[in-house]
């Protein structure tokens, strides 16, 4: 009985809808524009863990309002079963917690950056913000470290960087903040502007946006029509 119900038109539509929600949910979550003054580059690797003596603190000046994402560049790390990367974002004095994000991962391969997202912080332009980064091994007995890249960085936006309470000048985490616009309409328009660059007139702005919208609608409509025309309303006979 369960099997007959499980495979029905409703189930297929449900799987389809959940899949679409997850896909567009992930896009919305990561929909922000990176500050390319902060390039992700390799440098020396340092290990971070949940131990107090392996704490990494990075202070930086945000260039715009609506900070909503920070990418951190990690190197190959032997973490066996896996662990949780945690990023905490504080105010200038590293005391007031503003945002926090965790990523559970079973592997940290070489040259991978991890994306920490959080609800946007509206007034961040020219503000000094403080990042604390740590890694929690799922096997708490082992307390392995995640390897994060530290790069040369003499930008004035790189305010302060310390590892294990030792201040290191001229260096920073290999990280990249990203910002949203003030509204979703502005976000989408900015994306279309970026895609439009170095394109002919017929692939710019409203034209390419219209192509995208109609493509999404027609593709979804196609699958829904197929589900309705092929799968009978009644369950399996």
């Amino acid at each position, binding site marked *: 009985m369960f099997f007959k119900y499980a*495979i029905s038109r409703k189930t*297929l539509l449900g*799987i*389809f809808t959940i*899949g*679409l929600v997850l*896909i*567009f949910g*992930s*896009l919305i979550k*990561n*929909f*922000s*524009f*990176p500050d*390319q003054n902060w*390039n*992700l580059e390799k440098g020396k690797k340092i290990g971070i863990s949940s131990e107090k003596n392996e704490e990494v603190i990075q202070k930086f000046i945000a260039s715009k309002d609506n900070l909503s994402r920070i990418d951190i*560049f990690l190197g190959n790390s032997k973490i066996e079963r896996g662990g949780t990367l945690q990023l905490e974002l504080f105010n200038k004095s590293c005391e007031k917690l503003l945002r926090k994000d965790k990523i559970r*991962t079973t*592997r940290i*391969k070489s*040259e*991978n*950056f991890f994306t920490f997202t959080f609800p946007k912080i509206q007034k961040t332009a020219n503000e000094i913000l403080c990042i604390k980064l740590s890694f929690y091994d799922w096997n708490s007995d082992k307390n392995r470290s995640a390897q994060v890249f530290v790069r040369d960085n003499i930008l004035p936006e790189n305010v302060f960087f310390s590892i294990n309470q030792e201040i290191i000048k001229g260096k920073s985490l290999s990280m*990249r903040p990203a910002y949203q616009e003030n509204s979703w309409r502005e976000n989408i328009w900015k*994306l279309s*502007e*970026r*895609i*439009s*660059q*170095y*394109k*002919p*007139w*017929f*692939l*710019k*702005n409203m034209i*390419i946006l219209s*192509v*995208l919208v*109609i*493509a999404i609608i*027609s*593709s979804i*409509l*196609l*699958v829904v*029509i*197929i*589900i*309705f*025309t*092929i*799968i*009978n309303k009644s369950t*399996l*006979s």
Partner: protein
Amino acid sequence: MKNFLINKDFWKAPGFILFLILFSFFLREVFLVAVFPIFSGQDEARHYNTIQYLNEPKEKVWEIREAEQINEKKNLDTYNFSEEIINTGNAAEIFGFKDSLNKINFPAGSMGRNENLINSRQWEAINKKYPPDITGRGYQDLYHRLGAFIEKKISNQSILIRFYLIRIFSVILATIFIFLSYFVFKNSGFSKQHSLIMTAIISFQMKFSTYMTNINYAPLMFVSFAGFTLGGVLYLKNGLHWKNISLMLASVVIGIFTKGSAIVLIPVFVGLLGFTTWKKIKEDKINKKNIILVIILCIFLVSLLCRSYDVLSFLPKTGGGIGKTIESFSDYASASLPKIYSLSKNYWGKIGWVRIDYALSFIWIIWIIEAFALYGIVRFLFFKDKRPDFIPERKYIWFFLTLIIALQIGIRFFDWRIFSTSGKLNLGTPGRYFLPNLPVHIALLFSGLGIIIKKKSYFDYLIVFFLILIFLLSFHIIFNVIVPRYYL
């Protein structure tokens, strides 16, 4: 037309659904054409340079210089491309786009930093460095000649217009490929509904989708494979008829004049004609006129093969002797077999950029489905399991398998040849090389599954489920991998 539109069930009509498949595919592809930066496709600058080279005057009245040989070409300046391609690529910051970790520093607005410079057309679309970096043998330039025709018609326009219009030409060819695929499925014995779903599955196959946005001879070769497959199916269905033969012949000729891989169609064609004719002779169902026609056709095809290619040059250089040949093959197999995993991931759309992408674990689901399908095919062909009426007859399954094996052998033989001379997998066998047989692959996949499942209602659910899976994979790759990689 009016009756069609006022019929409230028009949305269920196969014609409308086919239109929607082609329409949605075309628009998705145009979007991807815009998303991928200029010259970012596989060997795209080289293919475009070939198009520009074909448009050059025969008499080279400008200064030409012999460029020094550089083995590792790291930037556009080290290639022997036209002045326009090199300067446009540099101006369009393509090496910034090639960095998979970082983005270019986008200015505000919809004009690139150097876009006005590119549009001012200060550079010449001619090759000054020799030998020019172009693709293909002398006569294998049908795609490029068509591209050169488009380029010439709009030669007074900016390179951005010319380049992206030729990309859209590739998309049009890909749309034709999908259209032909529907008729392959329908004529081989699948129902209209199942044929539509399989056609939709092909349209969402991500490796195929991304590959077809490039300036590359592949789209035209894919059309030739689809045309040949359709011709073969119609031949098996309706017998010897000038339409079927013409379609296969035209497809072979288009393929030969496009890319070397099409060579595999000739032995398949000869084999198909020979085998079916022999069967009819045994059954005494063929007249002398048709036998003579088939013989003439086979002779023509074999001579086309020999004139087009130095066939012996395809054989691996093993140093002679069975022992050395086996040793060479064994070395090649040891090197290439472990790559099957990454080849398959590449075939189904995994993009090798630097992100851990857990969603691509869905490829494991596809592999499990493929394993069941293979079991079903084996049972059907060798254990004579009863054929459900929604699955093609054995003759079509054998034809599809022949096409798969022929392309596999052809590509691997060539790969082995290069391996035997260099000791390395310099060519490799990336998944995209096997995409011309995508409709055949999908047909075999669902035939195998249908044989195991047997019941049509279960099959309906499975095929729709697979469509949903492929659709979600494609949307995930477009919106969570490709767009963020370049722009977010």
